[in-house]
């Protein structure tokens, strides 16, 4: 597997392959059930002293308010960041954002940057773009390091190497660390603590010498010109503090209006994400602090499809997402297929709606297959800390996928089916006529088009007579003496 999602097969195809990987299913079941339990205990704890639901409402409210006034918030953010000494750039798409980062890095004559784990830089393919410019981008989050050293793809928003178990991690470290820096110790065991210590030693030399750091941001506060990074390991603090230059790529939906808006979000995110009351480290910085940390600070405000998502009145709520990954951990589909099947850096239920929103409908088959990658059970909505109604968006998107293919030469099956239904149901005589062929129709369907449907579901047997035939025969049930007319 190479380091890109481009050219991934449609979800059903990729999911079938994933389902056959028993190691993957074992790793995922263990990991997701662990984190579900932790989160559930903390939600109960909050409910003993406060209200989790009210906290969700507050968190959803501050994100929604910022999104609906996004132009005001972005202008204010630009103004406060600039006043704080940061240099603000705007990027319409991935290519423009990558070019800005590469240009800044190149202007400092570096051949490497250290990176904080960031979904948005994955989304825009920054590492590949920097590599093309002759700059090595070192991932410093432990899971991202595992993915990078394994020449693998991330499969979870929070724990990108969730599909790897400890034995696999050990093997990757032994094989790959020596190719890019300090080798793993030869007596490396598969104890998580020992593996983490090896990562510490491997990355330390990179942190201490790096001149340019690259990050995303969890939140951007318009009022104060402050960026926020929430993390666990301290690799984020290293990248945000030690280099001379810091470049942060921030999706325009990350903005919140005021400093106080962070309160509900900082209470919701760690509990939903890692199942902790608070994550080990949260860093906030407002541009340049004289004598402390990077003295040249860049912020790249990125669109890359976010305004397209914002224009979708049903789907725009997906931009409230704070990337906690709670929806992945509770999803029965994700738990079985893992993240790679979604063919994107944003997997799971949120990925199923976010990818089509960012890329558009009817653009590629893979993206169009994502709104169907769900049983619509609703667990994701229940778990979402900012109350994104993912099932409703999925249903809306299924309609949009069909709409996008209305002019296709080969129509979608459901389009044909509903066209047929519209013809039959719009006229009583036509319906009566059609009903006489129910048995034959179902028999044909069973042999032909419905094979994919019936492989996992039951197609009901045809009734002996239709309701209308029964009504006519028995005079609405008053006379059961007449024999059923055989058809």
């Amino acid at each position, binding site marked *: 597997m190479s380091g890109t999602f481009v050219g991934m097969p449609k979800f059903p195809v990729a999911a079938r392959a994933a389902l056959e990987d028993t190691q993957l299913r074992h790793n995922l079941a263990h990991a997701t059930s662990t984190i579900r339990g932790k989160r559930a205990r903390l939600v109960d704890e909050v409910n003993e002293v*406060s209200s989790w639901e009210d906290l969700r409402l507050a968190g959803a409210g501050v994100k929604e308010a910022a999104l609906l006034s996004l132009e005001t918030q972005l202008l204010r953010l630009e103004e406060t960041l600039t006043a704080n000494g940061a240099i603000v750039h705007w990027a319409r798409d991935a290519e423009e954002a990558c070019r800005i980062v590469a240009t800044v890095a190149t202007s400092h004559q570096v051949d490497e940057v250290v990176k904080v784990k960031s979904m948005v830089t994955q989304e825009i393919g920054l590492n590949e773009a920097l590599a093309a410019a002759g700059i090595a981008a070192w991932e410093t989050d432990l899971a991202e390091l595992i993915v990078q050293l394994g020449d693998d793809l991330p499969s979870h928003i929070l724990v990108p190497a969730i599909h790897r178990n400890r034995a696999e991690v050990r093997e990757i470290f032994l094989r790959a660390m020596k190719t890019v820096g300090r080798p793993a110790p030869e007596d490396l065991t598969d104890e998580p603590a020992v593996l983490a210590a090896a990562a510490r030693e491997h990355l330390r030399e990179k942190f201490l010498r790096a001149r340019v750091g690259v990050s995303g941001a969890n939140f951007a506060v318009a009022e104060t010109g402050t960026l926020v990074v929430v993390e666990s390991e301290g690799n984020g603090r290293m990248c*945000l503090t030690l280099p001379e230059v810091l470049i942060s790529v921030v999706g325009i939906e990350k903005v919140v209006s005021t400093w106080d808006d962070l309160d509900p979000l900082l209470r919701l995110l760690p509990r939903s994400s890692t199942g902790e009351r608070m994550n080990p480290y949260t860093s906030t910085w407002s541009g340049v602090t004289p004598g402390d940390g990077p003295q040249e600070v860049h912020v790249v405000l990125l669109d890359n499809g976010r305004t397209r998502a914002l224009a979708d009145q049903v789907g725009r709520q997906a931009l409230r997402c704070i990337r906690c990954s709670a929806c992945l951990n509770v999803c029965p589909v994700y738990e079985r297929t893992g993240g790679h099947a979604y063919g994107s850096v944003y997997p799971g239920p949120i990925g199923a709606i976010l990818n089509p929103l960012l890329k558009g409908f009817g653009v590629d088959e893979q993206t169009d297959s994502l709104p169907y990658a769900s049983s619509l059970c609703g667990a994701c909505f229940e778990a979402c800390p900012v109350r994104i109604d993912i099932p409703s968006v999925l249903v809306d998107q299924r309609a949009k996928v069909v709409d996008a293919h209305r002019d296709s030469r080969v129509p979608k099956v459901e389009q044909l089916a509903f066209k047929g239904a519209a013809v039959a149901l719009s006229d009583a005589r036509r319906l009566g006529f059609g009903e006489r062929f129910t048995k034959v129709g179902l028999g044909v369907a069973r042999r032909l088009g419905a094979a994919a449907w019936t492989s996992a579901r039951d197609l009901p047997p045809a009734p002996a007579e239709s309701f209308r035939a029964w009504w006519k025969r028995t005079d609405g049930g008053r006379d059961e003496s007449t024999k059923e007319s055989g058809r």
Partner: protein
Amino acid sequence: MSARDEILGRVRAALADVTEVPAAPAAPRRSPVADVVGLFEERVADYRAVVVRTTAGGLPAALRDALPAGASAVIPPGLAGTLGLSGTGFVVDDGELSAAQLDQVDAVITASAVGIAETGTIVLDHAPDQGRRAITLVPDTHVCIVRADQIVLDVPDATALLRAAVLAGRPLTWISGPSATSDIELSRVEGVHGPRNLVVVIVESPQG
């Protein structure tokens, strides 16, 4: 058209249907507890940090006990001379120590801005008694002094107190236990890149 104008134009067009922006409902508050300091102590210890309670008079001894035997320690300029600590192992940060030099120091001692009981969090606003961010990051042991009167109940109390520091342009570091990861099979391991040892020294108020 510049990227900026184009993006802002797209935002405006995307929100053409929006006539009013509803205000967010207020975030709920946690119910009060009698012993806020006790809750803080319990929650910090929950992260497997070491928690010590002492008085102002007992602070120098508590700090010496908190440091590994023979450990060197860096001290921010605003704390120098106030801790009753002396000896060759203590270095006052002059702002010039490089990351590589800090990597040779065993520990760091700082004050803090706020403690949050509910989440067991200490927040540094990097005032002179806490120093620049690098000194509390690179050494492997962080001994952090929290006055009992700095401890608040929950996150909204803390964000309210920290607002002035943020508006003054200062960075913040929120610390909840030692550096940790759950990236391998989601089993929590303490100690990755940040300080692997966190000692929180709570200094009781004179009357309490």
